[in-house]
């Protein structure tokens, strides 16, 4: 999810709530369609291409994002082609996954996250969900930063250790990362308490409590 998408196209300027709704509807539709609905899949694919053009997104950008996420999607599917009737099912699942991902890539590239949160809140999304999303978004970047620092520290001292040693150090680092995140979580909670946090208060100051 990008930070502040500049309003470069009509799709960027569209109300994020509509985009969110459309993206969810698109993905649901894809999961419900049978393999025979060839016409629909073609139409959906064309619509995606049209939206890409409309949002002035570069095909390379889309491809890069898809390739980055695709391995995670393919992993659970690897055994399917070897079952009876597998290849057809594999093709269908692959198509669905690809199109769903493509839909979400367009959505995230054209929508600013803070604006989306605001809109979701104005649509009476439970505050528990919007606050969780907001914290997740903020800490995603901190986590990425910690991973980057950890990697640098490992590489800086890996000398002639070879890739195996680096891998082992990074694996140990994952545990470190978990502990660091836990500690950070505690410090953040202290900072929240210091500013009067007593559960979830809604924007209007009503007293919707978490516990």
């Amino acid at each position, binding site marked *: 999810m990008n*930070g*502040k998408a500049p309003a470069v196209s009509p799709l960027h300027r569209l109300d994020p709530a509509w985009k969110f709704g459309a993206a969810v509807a698109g993905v649901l539709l894809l999961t419900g369609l049978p393999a025979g609905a060839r016409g629909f899949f073609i139409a959906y694919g064309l619509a995606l291409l049209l939206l890409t053009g409309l949002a002035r997104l570069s095909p390379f950008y889309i491809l890069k994002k898809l390739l980055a996420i695709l391995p995670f999607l393919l992993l659970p599917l690897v055994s399917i082609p070897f079952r009876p009737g597998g290849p057809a099912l594999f093709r269908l699942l692959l198509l669905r996954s690809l199109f769903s991902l493509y839909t979400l890539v367009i959505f995230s590239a054209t929508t600013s996250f803070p604006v989306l949160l605001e809109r979701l809140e104005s649509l009476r999304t439970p505050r528990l969900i919007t606050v969780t999303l907001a914290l997740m978004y903020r*800490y995603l970047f901190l986590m990425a930063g910690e991973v980057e620092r950890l990697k640098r520290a490992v590489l800086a001292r890996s000398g002639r250790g070879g890739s195996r040693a680096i891998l082992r150090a990074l694996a140990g680092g994952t545990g470190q990362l978990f502990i660091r995140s836990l500690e950070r979580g505690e410090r953040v909670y202290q900072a929240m308490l210091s500013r*009067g946090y007593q559960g979830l208060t809604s*924007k209007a100051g009503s007293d919707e409590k978490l516990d």
Partner: protein
Amino acid sequence: MKSLIELRGLSYAYPDGTRALSELDFRICEGERVALIGPNGAGKTTLLLHLNGLILPQAGSVRVDGLEVKRANLPELRRRVGFVFQNPDDQLFLPTIGEDVAFGPRNFGFPEAEVVRRVASALERVGLAGREEKLCFNLSLGEKKRASLATVLAGDPRLLVFDEPTASLDPAGQRQIAGLLSELDLTMLIASHDLVFIRKVCSRVILLDGGRIHADGPAGEILDDGGRLAAHALV
């Protein structure tokens, strides 16, 4: 002068039995800007965490602005004490600065129009006027520190507590924070190792080491005593 912080016989030991604070007694009057100095592990942060009840006193008592630090007073205490943590990434946890600065006032139950007004005014006081929409992770460290200050100013506190406000800042950033704090007409307790900064901002210094107070007096007097500072690993 009305005393804003009053410690009487405050002691604290960690769960493993290590004594962090031993029978501390002192008063800080309204309007004073006091530095808390001492080597690493002296107990500075533990002491600060008592002031808004993030740690409750085990023995002795702490009073802030006439309120005793105890569970029943926590909501009111947290409104009156603005606590700025050392690492701004712990303090700024929402996506945009505006949202983050609004967090305190919203928790304190102010109506939305008042929240918006407070956010704008707090950001203006730290030199970040009109930057409500800016994303927190895109800020420089100096900006993050100032935004952290804004998050507590928006609650209109009676006392400001800082843990290492100038740590890892470049000299220009340190000067900027020193300038900002000097202009604020508020009582402050600042834990810091930055003696240059303390000279600029604080009139009184308390030296803490091993959980005990080793000196308490005018900043100039204590900071000029090179022998004593060296004895406590401060120079």
